[in-house]
């Protein structure tokens, strides 16, 4: 519709007006051919393109206004105006015509799918769905708003004469129908019989109207004989009860709650049982089947609501009814429990679907076949790779661990030894078999020398197996079971394994005897070559790694730990709780771990951070400091040397009276002495006890004299480091309390008898000071030291006071002497005094020109080294100096964890010293060997020191270079470990890592002999 000019207001125009034909234009004769007709859109653009002009042409022509097609939308920040941020939709990219009536997204008002009569179309007949609404059957509105379209079925039915409202089926006699109607009516009037299957809740549907109803009154037989369409019968619908709620109960629905009104008390289910109405009310609350609804009393104000007698008629009625019902109930109680309900006869079974049967040959893992012709090539390949031992990447964790395992790892060692044993036994077996085989094969008539050969070989094999056994028990070979390059040929692999063992033992040539006799010489040579190559190729990683790294754990005695732990697990008495309950406090219940305090905590406690480089906070897991937990053997040996017990100045002396009082006075005083110089007199009378050491050390004079305390501190340290050589140094005052250590103090003193000959002057004042330590002063003292110590630059100190080092070293040297040195002339107490004096009097020895006797006694190490160049022991002693600062800082011990430290670092740190070259070569050895040495030591060191030392000498003869360190490590004191690990850790901090060589074993032996004579 289009408004025209004013004068045409009265007309309504439909359609589009034709273009007016202009006068001068001649009308076209021919209409446009259909193929030339083009559909244009309102913009005059061609609408269809392409094949049969039906296709779309996207882009410039139609939908997008630019030649380039879709222009990407420019980014527009919505930061400032968030509200205007909009979500893009498909419509944004459409033109108007797309949105138009003929477009792809028409914006026209049209009925929703429900009303498009699609529902009726698709299905044959609508399946009646039970409605939850008040009216049963199909929703009323739905029926009212019938779709316009009718299904073909209904169309057909209509054609066949069916009308809506009628039933489908053959026509029935009106009479019959009437009867049926009556019956239904009767039933409805009666109420719902128990047996009635078609029970309808709520109001019943009106009975279908039939034409005959009007005539029903006429009672005409003719009419009754008419055939009429049957009634439309709606099938009753039941909802299967699928919950365990009471009848009619519906849980509160979320939706109904949110929608507003919830009728909690309205009846949910109403029905009639014998002329009494039953209703089940309430959604959440209400009255159940068994109860009866109360009378409405308050809704109606009525006099009838009030009682005028004791028993109102109403009550009476009720009572009677109740009684009657009770009676009935009793009757019925057997049959059915609830009035109005009956037991279901065929309970609907929930549908169950059995599981699909899985075919027998089904493999749940999908394997891809390359082609259908290659059956299981991939698997074959994997197996092959495994056989070849090339699947390094598929190794399990355990296997990898074995590969990477360190030589010193006890657990793996254990594993290896067992493996080696197996191997040897196997070789034994094979040897036997082989010999048997050969003896069988070779005919007896052949030749006697052949037999002889065989016999000889058997002999040899026996020897080898012995060797192998010995060797494997001694030092397990480091081959591993995981790498078996000749898996394919078990015999070969076996040979290879034994070859490795033999090679390690130095009997590589013996492979020939292991090889089967039927092999030719060439084959044997080839095999040997192969083995050689394989052994190089398949070297376990530890070899590779160890050339580049030093295992930090090799420094300590932590390899003892797992054993102990295992013991603990086995032995309940090792359990700390059990021990504590048995009042066995001490090493079992004591445990020291590395703990990193927060930096701020340190600051607030006015304490320098103990681990300045560490960034972690908390307990380092797996790192246990064993310093406090002394090995039993160690403890024994410790208790033998009470002399050094107190050398640790930084430790607070026992502040408690009782313990101290239990001790002889020396116990308290002795510990304060520094660096065992107890027997000056004695030493001076024995200047020749150590002839090999009689060379003056290369003393570099210290430019500035540090305060006395400082030296004491240093000496305390050195003494500790010395102690390492002997035994673990008890770091605490508590050890002083060990009375049984007292006698050993003397023994220990003797050991150090020759150390400081030069320190003869006795500073009585100092002595006095030191000798009268009250608890308070002592602890005070200790604290002061701590403080001083923290300001100390150890590296500087160490470099400036070489002399102290020298003295230290000389002491160490002394330590190699037997313990039982004569100490006849000096009593224990006096010794102690002297010690103290010496401790205080170290000072003079630091002067530029030390006294001659001092020099002679000190046996400067450097000269020693030069004189004994060949068998020089390396010592790394000064690293201990720093450690002392933090009151016997226990070094963390790696129990299981392997910490690799770049060897170069270690070397560089150690290279500062003069004996750089030797150190370099051996520092690594130290580290690695010390451990194994320590084990032995601990076991042997329990009682006899003297013999032990000699023993050690001999046992260690193959590794002279390590014995020096071994001495040290033997002590296995906390400090030794500390020093090692400390030095490893902070090697960059403390550059000095001096190594000093001392005498050879021969010399010490001579010395020992001499000393023995003297005794």
């Amino acid at each position, binding site marked *: 519709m289009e408004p025209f000019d004013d004068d045409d207001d009265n007309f309504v125009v439909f359609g589009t007006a034709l273009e007016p034909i202009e006068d001068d234009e001649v009308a076209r004769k021919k209409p446009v051919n259909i193929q030339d007709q083009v559909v244009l859109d309102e913009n005059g653009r061609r609408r269809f393109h392409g094949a049969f002009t039906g296709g779309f042409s996207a882009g410039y022509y139609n939908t997008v206004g630019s030649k380039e097609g879709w222009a990407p939308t420019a980014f527009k920040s919505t930061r400032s105006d968030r509200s205007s941020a909009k979500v893009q939709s498909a419509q944004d990219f459409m033109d108007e015509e797309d949105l138009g009536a003929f477009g792809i997204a028409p914006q026209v008002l049209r009925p929703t799918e429900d009303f498009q009569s699609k529902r009726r179309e698709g299905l044959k007949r609508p399946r009646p769905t039970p409605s939850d609404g008040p009216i049963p059957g199909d929703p009323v509105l739905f029926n009212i708003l019938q779709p316009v379209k009718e299904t073909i079925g209904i169309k057909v039915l209509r054609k066949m004469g069916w009308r809506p409202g009628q039933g489908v089926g053959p026509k029935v006699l009106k009479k019959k129908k009437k009867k049926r109607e009556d019956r239904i009516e009767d039933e409805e009037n009666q109420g719902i019989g128990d047996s009635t299957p078609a029970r309808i809740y709520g109001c019943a549907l009106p009975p279908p109207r039939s034409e005959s109803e009007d005539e029903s009154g006429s009672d005409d037989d003719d009419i009754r004989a008419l055939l009429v369409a049957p009634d439309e019968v709606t099938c009753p619908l039941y909802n299967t009860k699928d919950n365990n709620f009471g009848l009619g109960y519906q849980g509160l629905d979320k939706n109904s709650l949110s929608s507003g009104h919830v009728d909690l008390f309205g009846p949910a289910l109403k029905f009639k049982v014998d002329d009494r109405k039953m209703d089940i009310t309430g959604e959440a609350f209400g009255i159940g089947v068994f109860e009866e609804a109360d009378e409405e009393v308050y809704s109606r104000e009525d006099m009838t609501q009030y009682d005028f007698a004791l028993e109102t008629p109403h009550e009476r009625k009720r009572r009677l009814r109740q009684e009657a019902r009770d009676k009935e109930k009793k009757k019925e109680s057997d049959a059915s429990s609830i009035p109005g309900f009956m037991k279901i006869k065929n309970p609907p079974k929930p549908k169950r679907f059995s599981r699909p049967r899985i075919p027998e040959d089904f493999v749940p893992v999908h394997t891809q076949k390359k082609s259908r012709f290659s059956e299981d090539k991939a698997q074959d390949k994997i197996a092959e790779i495994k056989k070849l031992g090339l699947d390094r990447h598929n190794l399990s964790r355990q296997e990898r661990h074995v590969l990477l395992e360190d030589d010193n790892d006890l657990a793996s060692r254990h594993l290896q030894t067992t493996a080696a044993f197996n191997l040897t036994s196997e070789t034994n077996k094979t040897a036997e078999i082989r010999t048997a085989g050969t003896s069988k094969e070779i005919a007896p008539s052949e030749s006697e020398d052949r037999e002889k050969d065989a016999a000889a070989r058997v002999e040899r094999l026996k020897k080898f197996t012995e060797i192998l056994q010995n060797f494997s028990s001694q030092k397990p070979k480091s081959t591993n079971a995981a790498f078996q390059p000749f898996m394919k040929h078990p015999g070969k692999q076996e040979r290879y394994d034994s070859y490795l063992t033999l090679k390690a033992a130095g009997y590589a040539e013996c492979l020939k005897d292991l090889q089967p006799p039927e092999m030719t010489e060439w084959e044997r040579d080839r095999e040997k070559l192969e083995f050689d190559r394989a052994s190089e190729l398949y070297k376990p990683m530890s070899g590779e790694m160890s050339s580049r790294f030093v295992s930090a754990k090799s420094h300590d005695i932590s390899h003892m730990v797992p054993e102990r732990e295992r013991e603990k697990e086995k032995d309940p008495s090792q359990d700390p*709780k059990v021990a*504590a309950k048995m009042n066995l406090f001490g090493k079992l219940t004591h445990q020291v771990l590395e703990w990193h305090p927060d930096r701020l905590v340190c600051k*607030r*406690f006015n304490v320098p951070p103990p681990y300045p480089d560490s960034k972690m906070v908390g307990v380092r897991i797996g790192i246990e400091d064993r310093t*406090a937990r002394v090995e039993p053997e160690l403890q024994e040996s410790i208790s033998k040397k009470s002399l050094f017990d107190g050398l640790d100045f930084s430790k607070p002396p026992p*502040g*408690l009276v009782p313990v101290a009082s239990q001790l002889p006075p020396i116990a308290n005083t002795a510990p304060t002495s520094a660096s065992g110089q107890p027997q000056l007199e004695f030493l001076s009378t024995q200047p020749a006890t150590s002839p090999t050491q009689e060379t003056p050390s290369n003393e570099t004079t210290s430019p500035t004299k540090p305060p006395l305390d400082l030296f004491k501190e240093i000496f305390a340290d050195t003494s500790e480091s010395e102690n390492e050589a002997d035994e673990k140094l008890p770091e605490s005052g*508590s050890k002083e309390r060990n009375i049984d250590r007292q006698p050993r103090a003397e023994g220990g003193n003797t050991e150090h008898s020759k150390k400081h000959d030069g320190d003869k002057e006795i500073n009585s004042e100092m002595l006095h000071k030191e000798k009268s330590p009250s608890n308070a002063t002592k602890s005070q003292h200790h604290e002061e030291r701590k403080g001083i110590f923290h300001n100390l630059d150890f590296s500087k100190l160490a470099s400036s006071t070489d002399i102290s080092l020298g003295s230290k070293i000389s002491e160490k040297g002394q330590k190699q002497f037997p313990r039982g040195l004569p100490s006849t002339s000096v009593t224990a107490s006096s010794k102690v005094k002297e010690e103290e004096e010496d401790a205080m009097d170290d000072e003079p020895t630091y002067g530029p020109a030390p006294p001659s006797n001092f020099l002679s006694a000190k046996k400067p190490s450097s000269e020693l080294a030069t004189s004994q160049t060949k068998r020089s022991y390396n010592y790394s002693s000064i690293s201990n100096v720093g450690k002392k600062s933090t009151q016997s800082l226990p070094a963390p011990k790696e129990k299981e964890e392997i910490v690799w430290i770049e060897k170069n670092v270690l070397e560089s740190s150690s290279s500062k010293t003069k004996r750089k070259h030797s150190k370099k070569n051996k520092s690594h050895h130290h580290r690695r060997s010390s451990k194994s040495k320590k084990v032995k030591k601990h076991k042997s060191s329990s009682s006899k020191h003297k013999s032990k030392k000699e023993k050690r000498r001999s046992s260690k003869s193959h590794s002279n270079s390590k014995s020096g360190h071994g001495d040290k490590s033997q002590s296995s004191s906390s400090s030794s470990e500390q020093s090692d690990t400390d030095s490893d850790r902070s090697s960059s901090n403390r550059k000095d890592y001096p190594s000093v060589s001392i005498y050879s074993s021969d010399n010490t032996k001579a010395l020992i002999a001499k000393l023995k004579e003297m005794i």
Partner: protein
Amino acid sequence: MSGDKEKNFDCIQNIKCNQGSIRAVRFNVDGDYILTCGADRTIKLWSWARGVQLANYQGHSAEVSDARGSCDNAQILSGSVDRNVTLWDVETLRISRRWRCHNSSVTCVQFNEESSLAISGSQDNSVKIYDVRSRAQREIQTLNEPTDTVTSLAVSQDTILVGSADGYTRSYDIRNGKLTVDCMGEAVTSVAISRDCASNLVSVADGTCKLIDKSTGQLLASYRGFNEARYYDYKVESCFDNSDRWVIVTSPLGKLFIFDLISENVKETLDLGQSVVSVCCHPQADRIAAASGSSVSIFSSAEVD
């Protein structure tokens, strides 16, 4: 106070605190005042000599389990069952800090020596260290090694000693960065550090109080006040006296035992009637404050008074 002279402790003051059961009683730094923590969620400051209440600190929402005064007497640190660790301003009675870091009731609190750190132990098996000087809401370090309730804390110059119901004492040596773990067999109910810092006094839930060498973990002495095994589970608080000569141990049987540190003998038994919950020793004089029931008793050696 010469050591040889036999002295007896007499009750010189008995304060009815009116704050429900007393959970803890603490002397302040110089011993002039005492702090009492009550089950009625308050902390009270008393001048014990006069028996006068000076202040009442309210702000906890559950009973207060422990409190400490700072070294400058300006602040009070308290821990409560409401999981809060609270720092109070003594004068203004206001809360100056409140740390809600624990997941369970706070059982014990401590200042460090300079009162620059607050340390709290809790039933959530952890000890937390807070910086008093910053306004941080969170702790600066958590010591979560204990595997059961932290029952007690003791702080020395550079050591934090933690007693836990898991039967271990843990000594965190800040100077050396070491954690020393000592197994006590049974739950630890109280810990104290001797004045020379060489030994720890540990109350164990087997009815004894043990003196443990700090460095070696060896048992130096064991004090037993009562033998009734059914009282073993009760909390026993123990402390050294000001001169480390005696060990004072509470008992759930209403007695306060004073042991000779050396001989392990009971020097004296003070009867308080009700079970003794908390004990604290005067930092300088021979005075003991013991809390039992809802009152606090101050004992003093006869010689001093």
